[in-house]
């Protein structure tokens, strides 16, 4: 993990503490202070993890005015757990998202980089909330792999495999996810991550452009148009 | 002419019973035996060639004794003639697999229906006959009198008296013929106590008792969750209420235990009340204490309920409503299957129940080629009591419609079949020929197809399409046309001729919903007095304790 963090933040990666596969801290990107948090080694996110991240974001809002917030995602999701559900895991995630929204409203840019697993709930509960979302080429981005989807939907895997050639939403990975507009840019292993991150921070803005991207790239053709039809009909 | 045989048969049974009991010897302390000695006790009291009765009702089971019996081998037990009403436990099936049974006479196989069909196909099920309940109880007094009866009770006292609690069911019907013919009555009880709440079986009629290590098996068989009642069932309930209950002013009745009749029970305090029928119909009931009866009872519709068995969770409610239910001196609920079946046969205006399959002649059955389930209580109640004399309004009215000839009885009991035209998965309910008529099944049953209710006994068939009044049909062709007329879009229904249906409708033999003032648009689950189990608990004032599997709060 250390080497990956150094690729993003150079020596300033020292300011990021890694505990129980959860990262929180502050570092520098192109000389600018950034707030960093995220997961590594595909770990699960539970109630306590959500609280730790939320506390970090609140601290950033309070003490590091307008510092961009960089979210790194490598998590397999939430662990199905009786106690977690009873205590309201959804509410813990909702709280984390609310903290991120307050940060956005207070002028913090939100940048996400999917570094490893960015699957289902783990991606939705913070990373997908970024103003700008990028992913490493090697990252496993998406709802779930085709075999898992086949097991749940009872549709044979070969059928899904075949369909995925015309439906990128069924494919699993950073590139097809980018086709849908869910990822702005896919970084290759050869890229200079620090420079990429600096560029991402510079270009991030609070407009959610994913539907437009999905249409432009052809992976998600309907979203923008259907949304605009609703806006038109309701505006009459 | 003197017959030496007759001298020998004066009291051999009594002497033989004495020998069997002596063989038990020190394994018993008085009447009481230990749980672990049960297999040995059974070995000593049962002889080859015996008629053995194993108590298995459709709710309670002498399951501990059955399980112990199933541990015996051919060495200990053979050539047994098994008689029982409900052959429903895996242990029962085990007896056949081990080849211990020479002949079996029973009524109902329910959950073991598939196992029975398989045993039959393999030639391992030496069937005498499949009976209705009252038939088998009757034969206990004729040619199927048990030598040994293994029964179940809730409690015994130190003298050996038994308490049966809510589920008396058929215990007396087994014990009496056995005890009064020098047979051995062996009871498993949940516990032995000093004082019983009341005595249901006197110690005098009990020979052996064991305190079972686990309480007897008891199924909540008749609990129907109102949440599962569909719009179609409500429509049919409305059709039946107007076209039959109201028309014939049905005073006394038996209900089946399906969701269709549950819908009717739950419509009484709402739709029935709107129709002004309260106090005019449905006063006396021969049904188990069905939880879905609670709203009608609480709204004052019901004057009396007699039951063939209890229902798990209804103990406190029935005790608190002793004006309605039969209760013992201790205040708790009492049932009796034999007497209940008799009441349902001779004492009531109407039997109404659902069926899975009905043929174009009106015969119905629950048997399929893969499952031989036998009969529950329906055939004794869903048939004409040919010797009946006492008149009631409904009986005479239905009798007049059926146009009795000079040699026939003047009245007719209403025997009503509720049948949605399709079962789940688009399986048609109406067929040209019943699965029960399958030649292999018929052969195994010695030429008798296992028909649940005969077409000749049925007076009305109710579907979501309307009512066919079979009793008013003059010929078998007319009856078939009437059935096709309400069989909807099943293959049987698609064969109807429009002109025939029109003619039968004009003569009142077929009634469509609109003829009865019922519109599909009026159908709503909000008409149900209680829409879920919780609603029933609230109606009962907290007296109904539903089993855990029905509790979602």
């Amino acid at each position, binding site marked *: 993990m250390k080497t990956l963090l150094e690729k993003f933040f150079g020596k300033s990666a020292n300011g990021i503490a890694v505990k129980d596969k959860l990262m929180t801290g502050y570092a520098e990107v192109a000389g600018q202070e950034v707030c960093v948090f995220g997961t590594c080694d595909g770990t699960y996110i539970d109630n306590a993890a959500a609280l730790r991240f939320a506390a970090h974001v609140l601290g950033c809002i309070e003490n590091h005015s307008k510092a961009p917030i960089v979210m790194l995602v490598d998590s397999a999701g939430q662990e199905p757990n009786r106690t977690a559900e009873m205590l309201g895991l*959804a509410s813990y995630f909702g709280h984390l998202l609310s903290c991120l929204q307050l940060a956005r409203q207070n002028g913090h840019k939100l940048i996400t980089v999917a570094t490893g697993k960015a699957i289902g709930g783990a991606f939705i509960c913070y990373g997908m909330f970024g103003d700008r979302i990028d992913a490493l080429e090697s990252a496993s981005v998406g709802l779930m792999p085709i075999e898992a989807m086949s097991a749940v939907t009872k549709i044979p895997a070969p059928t899904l495999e075949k369909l995925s050639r015309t439906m990128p939403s069924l494919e699993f990975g950073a590139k097809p996810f980018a086709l849908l507009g869910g990822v702005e840019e896919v970084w290759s292993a050869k890229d200079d991550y620090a420079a990429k991150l600096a560029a991402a921070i510079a270009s991030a803005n609070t407009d959610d452009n994913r539907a437009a991207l999905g249409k432009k790239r052809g992976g998600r053709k309907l979203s923008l148009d259907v949304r605009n039809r609703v806006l038109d009909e309701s505006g009459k | 002419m003197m017959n030496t045989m007759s001298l020998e048969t004066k009291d051999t049974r009594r002497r033989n019973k004495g020998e069997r009991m002596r063989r038990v010897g020190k394994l018993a302390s008085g009447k009481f035996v230990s749980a672990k000695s049960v297999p040995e006790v059974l070995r000593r009291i049962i002889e080859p060639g015996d008629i053995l009765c194993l108590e298995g009702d459709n709710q309670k089971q002498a399951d501990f004794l059955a399980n112990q019996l199933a541990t015996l081998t051919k060495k200990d037990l053979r050539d047994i003639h098994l008689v029982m009403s409900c052959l429903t436990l895996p242990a029962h099936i085990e007896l056949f697999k081990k080849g211990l049974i020479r002949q079996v006479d029973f009524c109902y196989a329910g959950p073991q229906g598939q196992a029975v069909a398989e045993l039959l196909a393999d030639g391992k099920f030496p069937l005498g006959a499949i009976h209705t309940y009252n038939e088998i109880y009757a034969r206990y007094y004729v040619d199927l009198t048990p030598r040994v009866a293994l029964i179940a009770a809730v409690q015994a006292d130190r003298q050996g008296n038994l308490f049966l609690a809510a589920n008396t069911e058929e215990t007396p019907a087994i014990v009496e013929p056995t005890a009064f013919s020098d047979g051995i009555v062996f009871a498993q009880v949940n516990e032995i106590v000093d004082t019983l709440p009341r005595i249901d079986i006197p110690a005098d009629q009990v020979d052996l008792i064991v305190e079972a290590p686990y309480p007897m098996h008891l199924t909540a068989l008749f609990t129907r969750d109102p949440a599962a009642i569909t719009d179609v069932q409500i429509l049919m309930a409305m059709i039946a209420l107007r076209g039959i209950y109201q028309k014939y002013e049905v005073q006394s009745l038996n209900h089946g235990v399906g969701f269709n009749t549950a819908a009717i029970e739950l419509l009484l305090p709402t739709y029935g009340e709107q129709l002004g029928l309260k106090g005019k119909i449905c006063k006396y009931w021969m049904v188990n204490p069905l939880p879905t009866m609670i709203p009608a009872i609480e709204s004052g519709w019901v004057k009396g309920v007699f039951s063939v068995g209890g229902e798990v969770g209804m103990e406190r409610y029935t005790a608190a409503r002793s004006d309605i239910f039969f209760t013992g001196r201790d205040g708790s609920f009492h049932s009796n299957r034999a007497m209940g079946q008799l009441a349902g046969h001779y004492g009531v205006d109407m039997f109404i129940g659902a069926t899975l399959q009905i043929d174009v002649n009106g015969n119905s059955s629950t048997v399929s080629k893969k499952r031989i389930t036998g009969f529950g209580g329906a055939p004794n109640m869903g048939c004409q009591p040919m010797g009946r004399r006492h008149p009631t309004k409904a009986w005479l009215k239905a009798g007049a419609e059926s146009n009795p000839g000079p040699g026939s009885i003047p009245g007719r009991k209403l025997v009503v079949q509720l049948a949605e035209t399709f079962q789940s998965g688009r399986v048609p309910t109406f067929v040209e020929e019943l699965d029960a008529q399958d030649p292999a099944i018929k052969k195994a049953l010695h030429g008798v197809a296992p028909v649940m209710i005969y077409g000749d006994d049925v007076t009305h068939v109710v579907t979501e399409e309307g009512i066919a009044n079979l009793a008013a049909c003059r010929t078998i062709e007319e009856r078939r046309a009437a059935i096709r007329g309400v069989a909807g879009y099943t293959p049987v229904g698609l064969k109807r001729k429009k002109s025939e249906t029109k003619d039968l409708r004009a003569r009142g033999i077929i009634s469509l919903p609109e003829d009865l003032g019922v519109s599909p648009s009026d159908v709503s689950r909000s008409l149900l007095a209680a829409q879920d189990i919780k609603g029933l608990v609230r109606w009962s004032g907290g007296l109904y304790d539903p089993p855990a599997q029905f509790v979602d709060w």
Partner: protein
Amino acid sequence: MSSAQLFHEQTARQRLASLVDPGSFTEFLPPPERVMSPYLPQLDIPVSFDDGLVIGRAKIGGKTVYLAAQVGQFVGGSVGEVHGAKLTGILKAAARDGIPCVFIVESGGVRLHEGSSGEIAISEAMRAVFECRAKRVPTIAVIGSDIGAYGGMGILTTCCDFRIMTEHGRLGISGPIVIEKWMGKQAYDSSNRALVWKTSGGKTKFLLGDADMLAGDDAASVTAAIKKLLAKSSPLTLKGLKARQQELEKRLKTFGKTSDPDAIWNALGIKNVAEASLASATEFAALAKKK
């Protein structure tokens, strides 16, 4: 004696019709426009005219609102591309026009058959919820059916200003069957309905404060609850979120070691759990207050 139709048994369209002022509902992208999923037919799954989401404008108590109602029966109320785009659209319209948005939730989350598109769609809808909140436009989620709000939809409802639940409603991320598969039947029996509802149902969520109101299982009760909340919004503030942080930390510390919902009920002032389980929404709210 006849009772009202139970909210949890109504279809989405029936719910909308019975919640709003009579005849005031105008649907956007109504069925004749046939804005449907192009993906389901490729998987041989039937389509629906509204793709499982009915959206429009109506009045509640004379006040104009935007509404969205999910059709739980249709592929589990799941969010596909079209469904999600309609949802985002109505939320963005609410933010644009300053009109409150009421969302009747009945969904297991992302529509797996449409893969990652549904996942992105939920994320877009979340952004749109917060767009409303940033402008102090109230967003109210109503969860009142057995299907409940699960997966991404569970998370989305926790992003809204307010949640109204009935005791039939459930709120969570992982459903009971998934948990049972993961932890084993011993640890969590998904067929034990009483346990499942005690773990994730409306009453427990109301006690914990995750549901702001507990309404009765009928449209009139839900409408009354909506009316109470329509005038308010719950803007995000540092002070408010710090308080929430403390509350959630305390909850985790106090109850994190138990899996017994009764312990939560007892600790939160319910003395007689059996009585409270049977209680109606109004009775339960009164019992909960007595603490």
